[in-house]
């Protein structure tokens, strides 16, 4: 039984068309999203691992080495079961930084486009045998189906046009599959679904072939077991021990291949959109491979029983032909075709991306026209590279065809990719590794691999020489590939380690090593950016990418981060920059992306402190992973964080560049601004009035600002006090801490108390007022009575003048009292104007004189009549009243109280000296505290001096206390006020301004 070539080619085209349709259906969104995005689809797409070798070549291993064939699968199973060791950390880095190949990964880690180029070239060479394997498997299987047994047995005749025809067809489909998706889409949905479909097809076909072969050859599974019990040859093979160099070698190369091979890396990491899918693969992939491996032994035994005439590689195909069952033959062929096409498509796509990112773009082999769409140009370049790679695979096939079995081709390819293992392990686990070590180790390992394994394969004349070398170095062996493979890896590792230890690791590499290391808690660095908006980003990137692409990339990053286009927060812009770099890395490769970003969106010089916000975000996200001491530390962090957040004062932490790093709950309550709105913002971007208030204070050299009034947009006032860390700390690059206390309630209470205190003073003065007013009134009454009897006009006029004098006296007394009663009643608004100190003192003494019950003292006003200070006259009067009242209370009867002043540059000092008993040193520090008094109960409220202090502070002055007045004197107290000096010119200006205002008012 055989098939015609036309039938076979028709079958190939039909199958690939079905495959393309599946991809198209998925890509257009016609397939329900829950199916296309199901973890099972991702797991099945990883089945790309099982190429043509898994369908055909494994049979040879099983027939010759028994259960050792399982190591082909178990290497991968081990890699997935131990997913947390390699796959999950690799996925983390790959997804965050958009790395889609081993070259991307190692370029990112070792920060060198030279590394990327070297890895790409090495990967292309090592993967050539794998591509040739796929082509050979399909070409040979066509010959088997066509019944050309001689072609397979007489090697050199095998490379006919069929292989080229297959390459041509698969190239068309690879171009259709690989380059359809838009580069801005994170996942090539069509490709993933199509590869998953292929995995399903080959599994079903193989299981079908197994059932057909067992029932056809043995009459069922019981018959097969019976045959197995009787067949000594089959049982002997099964009892081949799974140990020794063969087992070690197989496990090593296939374990590494599961992460280093470009096609599996691409499907596992570049096409992953959810880390949960990879976790599903930790059991899903072993299950899939279990199902895929079950048919191997029964089918091989059926082939043994049927004694099919084809090479062992193709026993799966041969069974169907021997049983004259065309369905079995077609199923086996479709399984092989499916596996080979999937491997070729994904491998060439992955390699094309690598070449593009690490050879073409960084080396500027082909220049990109920035006036046209970069995406379209990249797609065309990718298509050209895919074609060239498949052609390269075909040429390699032509060179080796007929000389090598599928197993040999597979082992050489996998032994080559084994050389990338040290680099991958060091990326995750060895931060001290550097690019020199990597390149030297790779060169040494690949050198051994090339001479001992690849060269004998491509140059038959050198095979004897290589075999001789192998025997000399590793002794005679049944499996000559194992020795060179192990030796190349060992040499690679030793050279890598030694060179890394003796050469310097660059700063760039150290940063990347921290990011890549298994320690999830990398320390993000907070750099300042030169640009402050998204538009500036677009403008800067336009020079490298063209305006359209730059705009697209910035908008894409904004969309992914869920930021607005008018974003200006430094924290957000830093994340935007990192995201654009990651996205460009996926498009152009990490080296080119890093270069473009560094050039276009540079970081400000001399910046780079730890990014607290990002660290906290990472910690919050990683909390579930912490155990033991790490968990304790995290709990401690949360505890202190909570304390800080719940403090009854506002706490705000600022970076050296003014970026807000901390904004606790009290700050939110006081300002009405939520933490998530301001964290990462610049201080100046805070809403009015807080940006100005806090910004000005942070720039002010003063470390404290007391009783500052802040009025918001609605006109509501708050009173705050501000404190900050000393300037010295901030200068040394430390973050600054700013405390804000809301004292609105206390301030209002104080104003109420001030008013009450004044009323109390008025009460105390009331008796004196009555007496003072009573005397002139009595005088006026007497004069008025005399007027009744007075006829002399001169006397009448004289009496009227006296009455007017008495009336003036009353008016003065009442005015003083009214003036005093108005002090502080105007809700704390200061009206700073030039005030004559001497006049103010006079008024205060006049008021005090009204209190007849007070101690009789003499007030001596020595102030210069010309001296003016800038103050609120009503408040200054209150201050003088309190100080002079206290001085009077402290003085002896008929004692002197002297008020004097002396001028200083820009200020005036006013002294109030009494000759009383003085204030003990222990008490002096407390006299300005509210409610502190040394007077008897009922005589003082303890608020007088506190109010004086408060008023003087508000007016920008200072107050101090000296007691005793002179060093060697027992008593006497001096209060000294210091207030800004002003002049008559200023007084005139202020008066004319007031007049102007009065004129303008209706």
């Amino acid at each position, binding site marked *: 039984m055989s098939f015609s070539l036309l039938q076979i080619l028709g079958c190939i085209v039909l199958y690939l068309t079905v495959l393309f349709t599946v991809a198209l259906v998925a890509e257009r969104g016609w397939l329900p999203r829950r199916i296309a995005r199901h973890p099972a689809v991702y797991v099945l797409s990883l089945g790309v691992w099982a190429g043509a070798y898994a369908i055909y070549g494994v049979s040879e291993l099983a027939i010759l080495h028994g259960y050792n064939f399982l190591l082909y699968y178990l290497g991968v199973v081990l890699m997935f079961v131990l997913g947390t060791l390699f796959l999950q950390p690799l996925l983390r880095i790959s997804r965050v930084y958009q790395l889609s190949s081993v070259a991307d990964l190692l370029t990112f880690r070792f920060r060198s486009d030279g590394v990327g180029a070297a890895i790409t070239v090495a990967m292309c060479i090592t993967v050539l045998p794998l591509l040739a394997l796929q082509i050979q498997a399909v070409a040979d299987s066509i010959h088997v189906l066509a019944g050309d047994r001689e072609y397979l047995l007489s090697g050199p005749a095998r490379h006919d046009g069929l292989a080229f025809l297959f390459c041509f067809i698969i190239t068309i489909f690879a171009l259709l599959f690989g380059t359809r998706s838009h580069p801005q889409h994170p996942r090539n949905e069509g490709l993933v679904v199509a590869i998953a479909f292929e995995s399903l097809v080959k599994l079903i076909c193989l299981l079908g072939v197994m059932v057909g072969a067992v029932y056809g050859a043995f009459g069922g599974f019981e018959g097969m077991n019976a045959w197995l019990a009787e067949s000594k040859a089959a049982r002997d093979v099964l*009892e081949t021990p799974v140990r020794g160099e063969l087992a070690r070698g197989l496990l090593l190369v296939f374990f590494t291949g599961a992460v280093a091979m470009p096609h599996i890396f691409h499907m596992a990491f570049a096409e992953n959109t959810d880390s949960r899918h990879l976790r599903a693969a930790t059991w899903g992939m072993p299950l899939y491979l279990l199902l895929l491996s079950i048919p191997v032994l029964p089918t091989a035994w059926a082939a043994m029983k049927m004694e099919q005439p084809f090479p062992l590689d193709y026993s799966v195909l041969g069974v169907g032909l021997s049983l004259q069952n065309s369905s079995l033959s077609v199923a086996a062929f479709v399984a092989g075709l499916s596996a080979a096409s999937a491997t070729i498509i994904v491998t060439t796509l992955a390699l094309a991306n690598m070449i593009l990112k690490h050879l073409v773009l960084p080396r500027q082999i082909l220049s990109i026209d920035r006036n046209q769409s970069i995406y379209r140009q990249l797609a065309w370049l990718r298509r050209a590279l895919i074609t060239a790679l498949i052609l390269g695979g075909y040429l390699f096939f032509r060179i080796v065809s007929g000389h090598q079995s599928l197993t040999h081709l597979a082992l050489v390819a996998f032994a080559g990719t084994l050389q990338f293992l040290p680099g991958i392990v060091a990326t995750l686990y060895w931060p001290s590794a550097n690019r020199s070590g990597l390149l030297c180790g790779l060169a040494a390992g690949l050198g051994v691999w090339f001479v001992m394994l690849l060269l004998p394969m491509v140059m038959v004349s050198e095979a004897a020489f290589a075999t001789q070398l192998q025997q000399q170095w590793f002794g005679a062996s049944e499996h000559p590939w194992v020795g060179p493979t192990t030796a190349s890896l060992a040499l690679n590792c030793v050279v890598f380690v030694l060179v890394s230890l003796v050469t310097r690791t660059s700063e760039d590499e150290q940063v990347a090593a921290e990011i890549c290391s298994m*320690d999830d808690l990398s320390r993000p660095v907070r750099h300042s950016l030169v640009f402050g908006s998204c538009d500036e980003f677009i403008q800067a990137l336009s020079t490298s990418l063209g305006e359209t692409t730059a705009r697209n990339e910035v908008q894409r990053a904004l969309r992914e981060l869920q930021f607005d286009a008018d974003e200006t927060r430094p924290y957000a812009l830093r994340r935007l920059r990192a995201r654009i770099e990651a996205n460009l890395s996926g498009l152009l490769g990490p080296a080119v992306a890093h270069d473009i970003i560094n050039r276009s969106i540079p970081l400000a010089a001399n910046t780079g402190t730890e990014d607290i916000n990002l660290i906290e975000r990472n910690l919050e996200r990683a909390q579930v992973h912490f155990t033991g001491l790490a968990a304790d530390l995290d709990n401690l962090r949360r505890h202190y964080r909570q304390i800080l957040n719940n403090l009854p004062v506002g706490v705000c932490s600022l970076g050296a560049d003014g970026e807000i790093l901390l904004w606790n709950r009290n700050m939110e309550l006081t300002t009405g601004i939520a933490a998530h709105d301001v964290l990462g913002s610049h201080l100046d971007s805070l809403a009015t009035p807080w940006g100005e208030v806090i910004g000005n204070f942070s720039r002010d050299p003063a470390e404290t600002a007391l009783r500052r009034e802040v009025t918001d947009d609605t006109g509501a006032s708050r009173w705050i006090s501000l404190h900050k860390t000393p300037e010295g700390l901030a200068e040394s690059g430390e973050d600054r801490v700013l405390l804000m206390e809301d004292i609105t309630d206390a301030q209002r209470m104080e104003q109420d108390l001030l008013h009450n205190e004044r009323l109390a003073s008025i009460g105390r003065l009331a008796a004196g007022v009555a007496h003072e007013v009573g005397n002139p009134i009595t005088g006026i009454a007497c004069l008025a009575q005399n007027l009744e009897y007075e006829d002399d006009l001169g006397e009448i006029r004289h009496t009227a003048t006296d009455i007017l004098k008495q009336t003036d006296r009353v008016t003065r007394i009442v005015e003083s009292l009214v003036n005093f009663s108005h002090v502080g009643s105007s809700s704390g608004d200061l009206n700073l104007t030039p005030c004559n100190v001497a006049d103010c003192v006079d008024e205060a003494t006049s008021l005090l004189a009204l209190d007849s019950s007070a101690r009789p003292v003499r007030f001596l006003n020595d102030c210069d009549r010309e001296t003016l200070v800038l103050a609120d006259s009503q408040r200054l009067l209150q201050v003088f009243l309190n100080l002079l009242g206290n001085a009077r209370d402290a003085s002896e009867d008929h004692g002197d109280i002297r008020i004097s002043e002396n001028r200083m540059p820009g200020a005036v000092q006013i002294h109030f000296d009494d000759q009383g008993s003085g204030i003990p040193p222990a008490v002096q520090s407390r006299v300005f505290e509210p409610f502190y008094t040394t007077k008897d109960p009922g005589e003082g409220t303890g608020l007088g001096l506190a109010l004086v202090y408060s008023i003087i502070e508000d007016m920008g002055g200072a107050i101090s206390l000296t007691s005793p007045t002179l060093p060697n004197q027992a008593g006497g107290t001096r209060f000294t006020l210091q207030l800004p000096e002003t002049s008559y010119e200023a007084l005139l200006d202020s008066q004319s301004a007031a007049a102007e205002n009065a004129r303008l008012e209706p």
Partner: protein
Amino acid sequence: MYINRALVLLIGLAIIFFPTIAEWITNGDTTWYRPYQLWLLVVIAAYWNQRTRYPDEL
């Protein structure tokens, strides 16, 4: 460096018991699908290990 302790234990046990398991599998007196039974156990264990994990944290 953070490595799951359970994983280290698993690798240690696998290294210690691999020769015994390999010999048990290739023992001629047993059924041919014995390795697959063992493999299935590994699949179940892997499923058990990942089932109580967390949402996509990348």
